[in-house]
Protein backbone atom coordinates (compact mmCIF):
# COMPACT_ATOMS: atom_id res chain seq x y z
CA UNK A 1 0.00 0.00 0.00
CA UNK A 2 1.28 3.46 -0.91
CA UNK A 3 1.16 5.84 2.04
CA UNK A 4 2.59 8.91 0.35
CA UNK A 5 1.93 10.42 -3.09
CA UNK A 6 5.70 10.91 -3.32
CA UNK A 7 6.03 7.19 -4.04
CA UNK A 8 3.98 7.34 -7.26
CA UNK A 9 6.58 8.53 -9.76
CA UNK A 10 5.47 9.43 -13.28
CA UNK A 11 8.74 10.47 -14.82
CA UNK A 12 12.34 10.86 -13.74
CA UNK A 13 14.56 13.67 -14.99
CA UNK A 14 18.23 12.71 -14.60
CA UNK A 15 20.40 15.58 -13.41
CA UNK A 16 24.16 15.63 -13.02
CA UNK A 17 25.55 18.31 -10.74
CA UNK A 18 29.05 18.52 -9.21
CA UNK A 19 30.04 15.11 -10.66
CA UNK A 20 27.07 13.43 -8.98
CA UNK A 21 24.01 12.13 -10.75
CA UNK A 22 20.59 12.05 -9.22
CA UNK A 23 17.07 12.32 -10.54
CA UNK A 24 14.26 14.79 -10.06
CA UNK A 25 11.08 12.79 -9.73
CA UNK A 26 7.86 14.09 -11.25
CA UNK A 27 5.57 12.41 -8.74
CA UNK A 28 1.92 12.53 -7.73
CA UNK A 29 2.56 15.42 -5.32
CA UNK A 30 3.88 17.68 -8.06
CA UNK A 31 1.22 16.66 -10.56
CA UNK A 32 -1.56 17.15 -8.01
CA UNK A 33 -0.24 20.51 -6.81
CA UNK A 34 0.10 21.89 -10.32
CA UNK A 35 -3.26 20.45 -11.33
CA UNK A 36 -4.97 22.18 -8.41
CA UNK A 37 -3.09 25.41 -9.07
CA UNK A 38 -4.08 25.44 -12.75
CA UNK A 39 -7.67 24.58 -11.88
CA UNK A 40 -7.87 27.38 -9.30
CA UNK A 41 -6.24 29.88 -11.67
CA UNK A 42 -8.63 29.26 -14.53
CA UNK A 43 -11.66 28.86 -12.27
CA UNK A 44 -11.17 32.17 -10.51
CA UNK A 45 -10.21 33.93 -13.74
CA UNK A 46 -13.41 32.67 -15.31
CA UNK A 47 -15.43 33.89 -12.30
CA UNK A 48 -13.80 37.29 -11.94
CA UNK A 49 -14.27 38.06 -15.64
CA UNK A 50 -17.93 39.02 -15.20
CA UNK A 51 -17.90 40.67 -11.79
CA UNK A 52 -20.12 43.72 -11.38
CA UNK A 53 -21.12 46.20 -8.70
CA UNK A 54 -24.87 45.88 -9.16
CA UNK A 55 -27.14 43.73 -7.03
CA UNK A 56 -27.72 41.43 -10.02
CA UNK A 57 -24.62 39.35 -9.38
CA UNK A 58 -23.90 35.81 -10.43
CA UNK A 59 -23.96 32.98 -7.91
CA UNK A 60 -20.22 32.44 -8.17
CA UNK A 61 -19.52 36.10 -7.47
CA UNK A 62 -21.68 35.80 -4.37
CA UNK A 63 -19.68 32.75 -3.30
CA UNK A 64 -16.35 34.52 -3.75
CA UNK A 65 -17.60 37.58 -1.88
CA UNK A 66 -18.71 35.43 1.05
CA UNK A 67 -15.32 33.72 1.10
CA UNK A 68 -13.35 36.98 0.97
CA UNK A 69 -15.57 38.61 3.59
CA UNK A 70 -15.11 35.62 5.90
CA UNK A 71 -11.33 35.73 5.50
CA UNK A 72 -11.22 39.50 6.08
CA UNK A 73 -13.29 39.25 9.25
CA UNK A 74 -11.14 36.42 10.57
CA UNK A 75 -7.91 38.32 9.88
CA UNK A 76 -9.23 41.50 11.49
CA UNK A 77 -10.54 39.72 14.58
CA UNK A 78 -7.44 37.56 15.14
CA UNK A 79 -4.60 39.86 14.08
CA UNK A 80 -6.25 43.13 15.23
CA UNK A 81 -4.92 44.78 12.08
CA UNK A 82 -6.19 45.85 8.67
CA UNK A 83 -6.63 42.81 6.45
CA UNK A 84 -5.22 44.24 3.21
CA UNK A 85 -1.53 43.23 3.50
CA UNK A 86 -2.34 39.69 4.59
CA UNK A 87 -5.40 38.61 2.64
CA UNK A 88 -3.43 37.47 -0.43
CA UNK A 89 -1.15 35.14 1.53
CA UNK A 90 -3.70 33.83 4.04
CA UNK A 91 -6.46 33.52 1.45
CA UNK A 92 -4.23 31.64 -1.00
CA UNK A 93 -3.11 29.22 1.70
CA UNK A 94 -6.69 28.68 2.85
CA UNK A 95 -8.17 28.11 -0.61
CA UNK A 96 -5.32 25.91 -1.81
CA UNK A 97 -5.36 23.63 1.25
CA UNK A 98 -9.17 23.47 1.24
CA UNK A 99 -9.39 22.43 -2.41
CA UNK A 100 -6.45 20.04 -2.04
CA UNK A 101 -8.11 18.31 0.91
CA UNK A 102 -11.44 18.02 -0.86
CA UNK A 103 -9.87 16.42 -3.92
CA UNK A 104 -9.07 13.45 -1.66
CA UNK A 105 -12.59 12.24 -2.44
CA UNK A 106 -12.08 12.21 -6.22
CA UNK A 107 -11.40 8.73 -7.59
CA UNK A 108 -9.02 9.57 -10.44
CA UNK A 109 -7.11 6.61 -11.86
CA UNK A 110 -3.61 6.95 -13.30
CA UNK A 111 -1.62 4.42 -15.29
CA UNK A 112 1.98 4.48 -14.06
CA UNK A 113 4.40 1.92 -15.51
CA UNK A 114 1.48 -0.25 -16.67
CA UNK A 115 0.05 -0.45 -13.16
CA UNK A 116 -3.05 1.26 -11.82
CA UNK A 117 -2.54 4.00 -9.24
CA UNK A 118 -5.19 6.18 -7.61
CA UNK A 119 -5.02 9.91 -7.07
CA UNK A 120 -3.85 11.09 -3.65
CA UNK A 121 -4.17 14.68 -2.45
CA UNK A 122 -0.89 16.64 -2.36
CA UNK A 123 -1.49 17.63 1.28
CA UNK A 124 -1.04 13.99 2.33
CA UNK A 125 2.66 14.35 1.47
CA UNK A 126 5.01 15.93 3.99
CA UNK A 127 6.84 17.80 1.20
CA UNK A 128 3.81 19.94 0.35
CA UNK A 129 2.94 20.78 3.94
CA UNK A 130 6.59 21.48 4.79
CA UNK A 131 6.74 23.81 1.79
CA UNK A 132 3.62 25.67 2.92
CA UNK A 133 5.00 25.92 6.44
CA UNK A 134 8.29 27.32 5.09
CA UNK A 135 6.28 29.94 3.22
CA UNK A 136 4.48 30.89 6.44
CA UNK A 137 7.60 30.99 8.59
CA UNK A 138 9.54 33.08 6.07
CA UNK A 139 6.64 35.49 5.74
CA UNK A 140 6.73 35.85 9.53
CA UNK A 141 10.30 37.10 9.14
CA UNK A 142 9.48 39.31 6.15
CA UNK A 143 6.41 40.96 7.71
CA UNK A 144 8.21 41.35 11.06
CA UNK A 145 11.24 43.03 9.48
CA UNK A 146 9.07 45.26 7.32
CA UNK A 147 7.20 46.44 10.39
CA UNK A 148 9.96 46.78 12.97
CA UNK A 149 13.24 46.89 11.05
CA UNK A 150 15.91 44.20 11.25
CA UNK A 151 17.10 44.97 14.79
CA UNK A 152 13.60 45.51 16.06
CA UNK A 153 12.64 42.10 14.73
CA UNK A 154 15.57 40.27 16.31
CA UNK A 155 14.94 42.00 19.64
CA UNK A 156 11.97 39.65 19.97
CA UNK A 157 14.30 36.68 20.45
CA UNK A 158 16.03 38.27 23.46
CA UNK A 159 12.86 38.81 25.43
CA UNK A 160 12.16 38.67 28.33
CA UNK A 161 15.87 38.05 29.04
CA UNK A 162 18.81 37.31 26.73
CA UNK A 163 19.50 33.86 28.27
CA UNK A 164 16.29 32.62 26.67
CA UNK A 165 17.64 33.22 23.14
CA UNK A 166 18.16 29.48 22.32
CA UNK A 167 14.72 28.60 23.62
CA UNK A 168 13.10 31.35 21.56
CA UNK A 169 14.85 30.09 18.42
CA UNK A 170 13.76 26.54 19.26
CA UNK A 171 10.15 27.58 19.73
CA UNK A 172 10.23 29.37 16.36
CA UNK A 173 11.54 26.24 14.61
CA UNK A 174 9.19 23.86 16.39
CA UNK A 175 6.16 25.99 15.59
CA UNK A 176 7.05 25.69 11.90
CA UNK A 177 7.57 21.95 12.15
CA UNK A 178 4.33 21.41 14.06
CA UNK A 179 2.45 23.49 11.48
CA UNK A 180 3.67 21.13 8.76
CA UNK A 181 3.18 17.89 10.66
CA UNK A 182 -0.31 18.76 11.92
CA UNK A 183 -1.72 19.20 8.43
CA UNK A 184 0.20 16.23 7.01
CA UNK A 185 -0.77 13.89 9.86
CA UNK A 186 -4.45 14.74 9.75
CA UNK A 187 -4.87 14.31 6.00
CA UNK A 188 -2.58 11.28 5.73
CA UNK A 189 -4.26 9.48 8.63
CA UNK A 190 -7.68 10.11 7.12
CA UNK A 191 -6.68 8.58 3.79
CA UNK A 192 -4.87 5.69 5.43
CA UNK A 193 -7.80 4.90 7.71
CA UNK A 194 -10.13 4.82 4.71
CA UNK A 195 -7.69 2.49 2.91
CA UNK A 196 -7.38 0.07 5.83
CA UNK A 197 -11.13 -0.01 6.48
CA UNK A 198 -11.70 -0.60 2.77
CA UNK A 199 -9.76 -3.84 3.12
CA UNK A 200 -11.60 -4.85 6.31
CA UNK A 201 -15.17 -3.78 5.57
CA UNK A 202 -15.81 -2.43 2.08
CA UNK A 203 -18.99 -0.54 1.05
CA UNK A 204 -20.05 1.05 4.36
CA UNK A 205 -17.30 2.10 6.76
CA UNK A 206 -14.99 3.81 4.23
CA UNK A 207 -17.86 6.15 3.36
CA UNK A 208 -18.25 7.23 6.96
CA UNK A 209 -14.52 7.70 7.33
CA UNK A 210 -14.50 9.77 4.14
CA UNK A 211 -17.22 12.00 5.60
CA UNK A 212 -15.04 12.46 8.66
CA UNK A 213 -12.12 13.17 6.31
CA UNK A 214 -14.22 15.88 4.63
CA UNK A 215 -14.84 17.48 8.03
CA UNK A 216 -11.16 17.32 8.97
CA UNK A 217 -10.25 18.59 5.52
CA UNK A 218 -12.52 21.61 6.04
CA UNK A 219 -11.26 22.42 9.55
CA UNK A 220 -7.55 21.91 8.85
CA UNK A 221 -7.11 24.79 6.35
CA UNK A 222 -8.92 27.05 8.82
CA UNK A 223 -6.55 25.95 11.60
CA UNK A 224 -3.54 26.35 9.31
CA UNK A 225 -4.47 29.89 8.29
CA UNK A 226 -5.44 30.89 11.84
CA UNK A 227 -2.07 29.68 13.13
CA UNK A 228 -0.31 31.46 10.26
CA UNK A 229 -2.11 34.66 11.26
CA UNK A 230 -1.16 34.16 14.93
CA UNK A 231 2.51 33.59 14.10
CA UNK A 232 2.67 36.53 11.70
CA UNK A 233 1.00 38.91 14.14
CA UNK A 234 3.28 37.67 16.94
CA UNK A 235 6.27 38.39 14.70
CA UNK A 236 5.01 41.92 14.04
CA UNK A 237 4.71 42.85 17.70
CA UNK A 238 1.74 44.58 19.30
CA UNK A 239 -0.39 46.81 17.03
CA UNK A 240 0.07 50.48 17.78
CA UNK A 241 -2.71 52.80 18.99
CA UNK A 242 -3.12 54.49 15.61
CA UNK A 243 -3.51 51.12 13.87
CA UNK A 244 -6.18 50.06 16.34
CA UNK A 245 -8.07 53.31 15.85
CA UNK A 246 -7.82 52.95 12.07
CA UNK A 247 -9.25 49.45 12.28
CA UNK A 248 -12.04 50.57 14.60
CA UNK A 249 -13.06 53.40 12.29
CA UNK A 250 -12.96 51.01 9.31
CA UNK A 251 -15.25 48.58 11.08
CA UNK A 252 -17.62 51.36 12.11
CA UNK A 253 -17.74 52.61 8.52
CA UNK A 254 -18.81 49.17 7.34
CA UNK A 255 -21.78 49.10 9.70
Amino acid at each position, binding site marked *: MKISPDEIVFYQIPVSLFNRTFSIDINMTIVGTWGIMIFLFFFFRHITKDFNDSLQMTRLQNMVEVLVKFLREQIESIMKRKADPFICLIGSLFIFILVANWTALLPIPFIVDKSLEWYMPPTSSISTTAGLSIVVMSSVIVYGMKKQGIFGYFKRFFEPIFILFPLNILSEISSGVSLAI*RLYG*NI*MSGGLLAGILFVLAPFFLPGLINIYGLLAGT*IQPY*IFSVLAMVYISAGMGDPSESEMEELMSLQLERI
Partner: protein
Amino acid sequence: MDMGLVWIAVASIIGASVAVGLGGIGPALAEGMATKQTLASMAQQPDEASTLRSTLFVSMAMLESTAIYALLVAMILIFSNPFWNYAVSNIVR
Protein backbone atom coordinates in the same frame (compact mmCIF):
# COMPACT_ATOMS: atom_id res chain seq x y z
CA MET B 1 15.16 -16.39 9.20
CA ASP B 2 17.53 -14.41 11.29
CA MET B 3 16.39 -13.96 14.91
CA GLY B 4 17.66 -10.38 14.96
CA LEU B 5 15.19 -9.43 12.24
CA VAL B 6 12.36 -11.10 14.15
CA TRP B 7 13.20 -9.12 17.26
CA ILE B 8 13.35 -5.88 15.29
CA ALA B 9 9.90 -6.63 13.87
CA VAL B 10 8.50 -7.53 17.30
CA ALA B 11 9.95 -4.41 18.90
CA SER B 12 8.62 -2.18 16.09
CA ILE B 13 5.10 -3.59 16.27
CA ILE B 14 4.93 -3.36 20.06
CA GLY B 15 6.46 0.11 19.96
CA ALA B 16 3.94 1.30 17.38
CA SER B 17 0.97 -0.07 19.32
CA VAL B 18 2.18 1.40 22.62
CA ALA B 19 2.88 4.74 20.95
CA VAL B 20 -0.64 5.03 19.56
CA GLY B 21 -2.31 3.59 22.66
CA LEU B 22 -0.59 5.78 25.21
CA GLY B 23 -0.37 8.76 22.89
CA GLY B 24 -4.14 8.71 22.45
CA ILE B 25 -4.95 8.91 26.17
CA GLY B 26 -3.67 12.39 26.87
CA PRO B 27 -5.23 14.19 23.88
CA ALA B 28 -8.52 12.32 24.40
CA LEU B 29 -8.79 13.49 28.01
CA ALA B 30 -7.70 16.99 27.08
CA GLU B 31 -10.19 17.28 24.21
CA GLY B 32 -12.95 16.02 26.50
CA MET B 33 -12.13 18.68 29.06
CA ALA B 34 -11.95 21.41 26.44
CA THR B 35 -15.31 20.37 24.93
CA LYS B 36 -16.94 20.15 28.37
CA GLN B 37 -15.81 23.63 29.28
CA THR B 38 -16.82 25.09 25.94
CA LEU B 39 -20.29 23.53 26.11
CA ALA B 40 -20.76 24.92 29.63
CA SER B 41 -19.68 28.37 28.42
CA MET B 42 -21.98 28.14 25.39
CA ALA B 43 -24.91 27.26 27.62
CA GLN B 44 -24.14 30.25 29.85
CA GLN B 45 -23.47 32.74 27.07
CA PRO B 46 -25.21 31.73 23.83
CA ASP B 47 -24.31 35.10 22.29
CA GLU B 48 -20.63 34.24 22.35
CA ALA B 49 -21.17 30.81 20.73
CA SER B 50 -19.46 31.65 17.44
CA THR B 51 -16.28 32.96 19.12
CA LEU B 52 -16.22 29.96 21.45
CA ARG B 53 -16.69 27.57 18.56
CA SER B 54 -13.85 28.95 16.50
CA THR B 55 -11.55 29.00 19.52
CA LEU B 56 -12.58 25.42 20.28
CA PHE B 57 -11.67 24.31 16.75
CA VAL B 58 -8.23 25.87 16.97
CA SER B 59 -7.49 24.46 20.41
CA MET B 60 -8.78 21.05 19.30
CA ALA B 61 -6.30 21.05 16.44
CA MET B 62 -3.50 22.02 18.81
CA LEU B 63 -4.44 19.22 21.20
CA GLU B 64 -4.91 16.72 18.43
CA SER B 65 -1.45 17.37 17.05
CA THR B 66 0.13 15.50 20.00
CA ALA B 67 -1.90 12.43 19.06
CA ILE B 68 -0.86 12.96 15.44
CA TYR B 69 2.81 12.95 16.47
CA ALA B 70 2.29 9.59 18.18
CA LEU B 71 0.54 8.28 15.09
CA LEU B 72 3.40 9.50 12.91
CA VAL B 73 5.97 7.65 15.04
CA ALA B 74 3.85 4.51 14.79
CA MET B 75 3.57 4.89 11.00
CA ILE B 76 7.33 5.33 10.67
CA LEU B 77 7.91 2.23 12.81
CA ILE B 78 5.55 0.11 10.70
CA PHE B 79 5.93 1.40 7.13
CA SER B 80 9.42 2.86 6.85
CA ASN B 81 11.39 1.58 9.82
CA PRO B 82 15.03 2.71 9.45
CA PHE B 83 16.39 -0.09 11.67
CA TRP B 84 14.51 -2.76 9.73
CA ASN B 85 15.72 -1.35 6.40
CA TYR B 86 19.30 -1.25 7.68
CA ALA B 87 19.14 -4.84 8.92
CA VAL B 88 17.56 -6.10 5.68
CA SER B 89 20.11 -4.34 3.47
CA ASN B 90 22.99 -5.75 5.55
CA ILE B 91 21.67 -9.32 5.28
CA VAL B 92 21.22 -9.06 1.53
CA ARG B 93 24.80 -7.91 1.17
